């Protein structure tokens, strides 16, 4: 029963959702919206589990003074302070205020934005270093990749003079022909893979999501 009930539920809801997509009737839409609400409810449980897990792991790290335990303190502080600032205690106790809260907005504008923007901007330096080391014309395929990358990078360079037009045309061809063909192949392959996996789950062939017990 423990294994059969989930399989039956997955089959019923899976088949329903497939047919619902093709039935534009009002009642079908109503059930669909009703089921969408369930996903939010399940998601809330997942979030509660995730917060519990994060707090437990971080607290364990702090308690036993494990390596880099100071970062765990910052993690917990960040988590609880932002939640605390997210509410409007002044007017309506515990009503969500988010960015309208002075502290929440200041933490977001002056801590969150600079941190994330800085981390991402560092990527430019690592890309430069990685490109210098990895882009080597070791074989025919590697050479083709190298030449394509250089053409695409140079396509909008305004200092190329008469070559610029040809560079732009070649780059457009690279993006619209070989790139497009490869991407379409991947997208169709992934799509078919999703359909196959979904059918396997709905029909009970794929049961890994049930766990081992």
């Amino acid at each position: 029963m423990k294994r059969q009930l989930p399989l039956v539920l997955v089959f019923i809801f899976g088949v329903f959702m497939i047919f619902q997509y093709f039935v534009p009737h009002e009642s079908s839409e109503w059930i669909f919206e009703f089921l969408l609400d369930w996903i939010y409810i399940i998601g809330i449980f997942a979030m509660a589990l995730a917060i519990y897990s994060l707090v437990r792991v971080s607290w364990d790290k702090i308690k036993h003074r494990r390596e880099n335990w100071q970062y765990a303190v910052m993690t917990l502080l960040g988590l609880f302070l932002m939640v605390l600032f997210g509410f409007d205690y002044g007017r309506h106790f515990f009503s969500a205020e988010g960015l309208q809260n002075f502290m929440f907005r200041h933490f977001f504008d002056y801590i969150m934005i600079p941190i994330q923007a800085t981390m991402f901007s560092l990527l430019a330096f690592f890309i430069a270093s990685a490109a210098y080391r990895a882009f080597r014309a070791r074989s025919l395929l590697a050479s083709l990749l190298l030449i394509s990358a250089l053409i695409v990078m140079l396509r909008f360079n305004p200092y190329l003079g008469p070559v610029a037009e040809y560079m732009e045309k070649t780059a457009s061809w690279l993006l619209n022909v070989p790139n497009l063909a490869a991407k379409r192949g991947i997208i169709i392959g992934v799509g078919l893979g999703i359909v196959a996996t979904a059918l396997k789950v709905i029909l009970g062939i794929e049961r890994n999501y049930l766990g081992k017990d």
Partner: protein
Amino acid sequence: MNIFDRMMSLDRRWVFLFLALVCVITHVVPFSIPIIITQEAKSIYSFIDTLKEGDIIFMAIDYDPNSLAEMHPMTYAIAEHAFRKKLKIIFTSLSVNGPGMADLAIRDISDSVKIGKTYNGVYYEGREVVNGIDYIFLGYKPYPALVIVGMGQNFRLPFPTDYYGTPLDEHPIMQGVQNYDQIKCVVDISGTSGVDMWITYGQGRYNFPLALGLTGVMAADYYPYLNSGQVFGILGGLLGAAQYEKMADNPGRAVDGMRVQLFAHIVIILFIVMGNVGFLLSRRKARKD
């Protein structure tokens, strides 16, 4: 170690230093570089430019602060262009940190539109853009696919109130607006995989005109959708934003940042070329020996 080996195995700290120097110098020294306009960027500008006063467009601010440098100029350029044309905008955000980005952008753009300016030879008087009349910000909800499908039925399903807690029906902009049927196009400014949801569950199911603003690294992935007609335009990275700014005659952060990006790219290319010259000459020398 001979010269060719040195060319191949330069310490990465030199690469970092050289790149940093070029970025700083090109940022500090002001000079302009020509911006080449692509068809995929032009089609977005033309679409918005030909809309009539009072038409509504939908802008999804689906990016986090990490891609702010590329995405913010796109949001600013498109939204300011739309506000100058007296279009109305429904903003939303399907990325976790997106509301902060959208809120910041709305504040800045509102300030900018207050000042009268001339764009492409036409003078636009400064005006106040008012929340609920000229724009509305719906806020964030998790699970992008569900939110996109929900908005296809009615915007009020996933968002009964706007981000600031006011019921949608209390806003004049939302009078008579139920779902995507009442809006002219969706512009998704995205640095996340949420863009796939807009294509699959949004455009695929509700068939609205969809334009994308993407980070530079993402743009090439979405050309298939441009060619199939599912997407009518793409702005790719800082260059895409700079192209829009140029077309709108409103040079801003993107046009300003293009000289830094251009010379940083040239530096990367030079390092790649140097590494390869060293590699090929070293291989030739080894064969001779």
